[in-house]
């Protein structure tokens, strides 16, 4: 059947809603691109892009945010995969409680989270009832602040990462695969790293992409913890310049689409195998 014949078979209202949805998404994007290309009067060009990329602060903040995103993703996987796995395997009754906890970041705003973090971690850790300090306040040194912000980002990304991982585990028979591996002599570490993780890689990539998108664009935590991240940079740029933020926003879109394309590329095979 030709593609036109297939298109004709789809009812009118399906097309109507599809086109309406697409316009809702594409029109603002088109406006942003159009605006970003008109930095010079009466000329369509990439000057805004050139100037945005030339700014050394752009690269610095962008790389730093990428580093934070990577750390967040790694830490989230280390925390969430064994948790979701254990709940599915041994504690199914705890699933509702954990799901509720994973939804909290939607209810508690980032501003509350960051003030809570600052309040708790800006004073030194002491052994109770003594004056012996075991750790300086995390907010007073660079690595400490990085740990703090990564922990905050893990909380923000929790709903996306947990749900992706949990959905991934639902598509494979975790319990039987675990038992099969155990009967062959595998330890828990071997089971998670060699059996479970490779079989949920599509879900992991989806969760990682969403976490990456959240971290790279995040403003509140980064601003209040005073770290040189990409989110606050973009925010400040938007207050002083007009065209460069539009150019960078569109570039961010392209980056996201590229990441989604990569996910499709890497997970295509697994989806085929999952269908069986």
């Amino acid at each position, binding site marked *: 059947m030709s593609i036109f014949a297939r298109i004709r078979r789809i009812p009118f209202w399906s097309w109507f809603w599809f086109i309406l949805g697409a316009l809702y998404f594409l029109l603002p994007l088109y406006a942003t691109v159009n605006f970003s290309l008109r930095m010079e009067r009466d000329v369509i060009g990439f000057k805004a892009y050139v100037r945005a990329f030339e700014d050394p602060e752009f690269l610095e903040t962008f790389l730093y945010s990428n580093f934070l995103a990577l750390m967040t993703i790694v830490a989230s996987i280390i925390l969430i995969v064994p948790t979701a796995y254990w709940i599915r395997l041994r504690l199914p009754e705890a699933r509702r409680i954990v799901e509720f906890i994973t939804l909290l970041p939607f209810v508690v705003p980032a501003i509350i989270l960051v003030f809570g973090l600052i309040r708790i971690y800006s004073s030194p850790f002491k052994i109770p009832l003594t004056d012996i300090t075991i750790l300086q306040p995390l907010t007073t040194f660079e690595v400490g602040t990085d740990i703090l912000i990564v922990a905050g980002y893990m909380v923000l990304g929790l709903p996306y990462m947990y749900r992706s991982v949990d959905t991934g585990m639902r598509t494979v028979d975790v319990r*039987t*695969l675990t*038992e*099969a*591996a155990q*009967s*062959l*002599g595998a330890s828990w570490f071997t089971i998670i790293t060699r059996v479970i993780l490779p079989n949920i890689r599509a879900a992991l990539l989806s969760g990682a992409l969403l976490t990456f998108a959240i971290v790279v664009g995040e403003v509140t935590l980064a601003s209040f913890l005073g770290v040189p991240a990409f989110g606050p940079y973009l925010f400040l740029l938007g207050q002083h310049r007009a065209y460069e933020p539009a150019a960078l926003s569109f570039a961010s879109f392209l980056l996201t689409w590229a990441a989604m394309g990569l996910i499709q590329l890497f997970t295509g095979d697994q989806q085929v195998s999952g269908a069986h």
Partner: protein
Amino acid sequence: MSYLSISRVTKQFGDTVVVDDFNLDVEKGEFVSFLGPSGCGKTTTLRMVAGFEIPTSGKILLDGADITDKAPNQRNVGMIFQSYALFPNMTVAQNIGFGLRVRKEPENMVKQRVEEMVSLINLEKHANKYPYQLSGGQQQRVSLARALAIHPQVLLLDEPLSALDAKIRISLRAEIRAIQKKLGITAIFVTHDQEEALSISDRIVVMNTGVMEQVGTPFEIYNFPKTRFVANFVGSLNTADAEVVDPAKGLVSMDGVQFESAEGTEGRKKGDKVKIAIRPERLSFASEQKKANVVDATIENITFLGSVVRIQVKIGNTKFNMDTFNNPFLELPGLGSKEQVTCSKEAVLVLDE
């Protein structure tokens, strides 16, 4: 001392007793089937041997060593699952070699063993394929090879043929039995399919509601069921209410029709209510030479089942099925006609009501 000993094993989930006082000794190289309906505790018992469940009480000894509380990955038992449980991210060869690599065997030894196993299951051409590229039967053969690759002390098979179609099921069960005999490995096979259990096993354990009903060879289980449950569950059976007439001679009466049983009715008194049970293939039309258990019957229905013809007859007020082998020259009586049917004294089982 037996190779695998399951001694006084009980398993409770909360207040529910799933397996109750299970005792079984399995010899080395023996093929034992656990047979029973869903929920009878057969899979739970197997899982206790595998280490996936810990008994509430009792002991499991394997080659003299107590493995009751050992973790599954320290038991050296191979397990085959109904759903194959092959690792989707690994090829056939990688799946088979997984257990050996986990045990950190040298790579050349792993490769050699994988080749042996792939050749044992006749899947040499598929060694580099992924599970989703194989049929169900092929996947289960890979699962068998993977379990055997680690030289397990016991092979546990949890309804391995249930997900396969009828033809593959029959050929694969023969293959499993042939491989088990060739390697001389001790095997426990869980199934709810009586034909499967009868055809493949050295011994069968029939289970019901967590209790062992009978342990015996397939011949004993089929021909000499010890309980009403076994008689009903294994094979098809005609049963009818009856009354003891002469305990010494083994005479019982059903609707005024007398049957003589070879096993006798010892321990019972005249007038005791019992059940008689006769397998359909043990009934036949009476010839003149037959003297025992010749009774009048009316032909009610005739059903053609391919190799067998099932004739429903009415004896007294009770309907019995009678199976006879089909042949093109078989002369069948007309419906409603009066005939005499018979069975040997050995064919009449007397069970408690």
